[in-house]
């Protein structure tokens, strides 16, 4: 146990710099996944059958490929096609695309939870499509979308560790390098696990609170 604490004092500064990269790559991927997810979801509920078809094909394709393969594709294959990305950017884009399809499902569930009769009420008031989206559909969909959105975000945080495989120096990668050079596997991986928990537990708690606040209104 005392070994663990000496190790902790020694390793934590290195691991915490990795933690910073984990947070950065997670946030960047989250933004990409939300934007793309909204695009897929809006295409999926569009009246245009071509857009709906594209959305479905994209979602099924991306969901059908392991995230690690998608990251390899972005990092190793794109350069052959002339698109050179550094590891961090490739990681954020790869994770963002992979997660966009899960976000799309969350958004779609939110949109379809909105009572069509409320949309009719807004139409009867003469509201424009854009206003109906912003004033009626979005605020109501958020309540339904938020809990699964929070869970997806926590999953993304954990899956950001996959970016270690394309040399992004995030928490897991930093820990791996420490472990192979110090042989203190127990201390290193316990610290890594605790650091992930230190992020995911508060996040889960926060989502739960938001969820309850929306439910009350």
């Amino acid at each position, binding site marked *: 146990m005392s070994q663990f604490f000496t190790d902790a004092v020694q390793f934590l500064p290195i691991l915490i710099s990795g933690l910073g990269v984990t947070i950065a790559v997670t946030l960047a991927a989250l933004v990409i996944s939300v934007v793309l997810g909204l695009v897929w979801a809006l295409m999926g509920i569009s009246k245009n059958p071509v857009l709906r078809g594209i959305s479905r094909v994209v979602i099924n394709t991306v969901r059908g490929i392991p995230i690690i393969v998608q990251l390899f594709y972005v990092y190793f294959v794109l350069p052959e096609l002339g698109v050179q990305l550094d590891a961090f950017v490739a990681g954020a884009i790869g994770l963002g695309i992979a997660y966009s399809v899960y976000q799309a499902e969350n958004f779609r569930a939110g949109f379809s939870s909105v009572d069509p*009769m*409320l949309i009719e009420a807004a*139409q*009867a008031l003469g509201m*424009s499509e854009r206003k109906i989206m912003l004033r009626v559909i979005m605020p*109501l969909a958020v309540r339904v979308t938020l809990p699964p959105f929070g869970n997806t975000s926590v999953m993304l945080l954990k899956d950001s560790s996959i970016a270690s495989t394309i040399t992004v120096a995030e928490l897991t990668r930093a820990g791996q390098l420490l472990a192979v050079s110090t042989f203190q596997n127990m201390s290193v991986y316990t610290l890594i696990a605790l650091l992930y928990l230190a992020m995911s537990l508060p996040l889960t708690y926060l989502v739960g609170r938001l969820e309850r606040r929306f439910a009350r209104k």
Partner: protein
Amino acid sequence: MISLKNVSKSFGDTQVLKDISFEIQRGEVVCLIGPSGSGKSTILRCINGLERHDGGEISVDGAPVTDKSLPAIRGKVAMVFQRFNLFPHRTAQENVAEGPIHVAGRPVAEAMAEAKTLLERVGLADKCEAYPAKLSGGQQQRVGIARALAMKPQAILFDEPTSALDPERVGEVLKVMRALADEGMTMVIVTHEIGFAREVADRVLFMDGGRIVESGPAREVLTAPKVERTRVFLDRVLNPL
């Protein structure tokens, strides 16, 4: 003010409106009655473009109902729904002010003050801050009427406004509607409240199977119907046993 000429409408293979023609004058109160599925609600929904009619012509204030004219028409013709359809994430007052602020572009403070006045008018002065979930059906429907009035419409369409209410709550909504009728509002009302129609309506249209079977002054049609189908319907509604 509202005119329908040879209007028809189908859902798939089922023709729900067959050659419907009638006119509604400014200030007139017209009740549409008839069995479920006879096309009454569909007529209302076609007038403000929630459904698109297939044939014939509907016009409001001389302007035909088309995709292009819809925004203008919805500004003139408001709608009150059977299930109220209030926005659950906004208070009563916000529900009423929603159209004036976000469709008509009126200043927020002014629209909110006016919403308060309208809620007072329907007897809900103390419910401004209440969310719809905290209101009874009758109260929600009165908010729905206030929301329709907030757009300063020239006519209001009522789609079975009391059908989803507790029997005890029907009166408070009908009272508000009668007051509107007395003030000269143009109203088209789909209803099963025969008593209300007889008291308040100028004219009644009886529908069955997508057609207007009989129409005329409310008292005449409802007390001495000329057509057998109307007579049978009224008899069943008024004497269910």
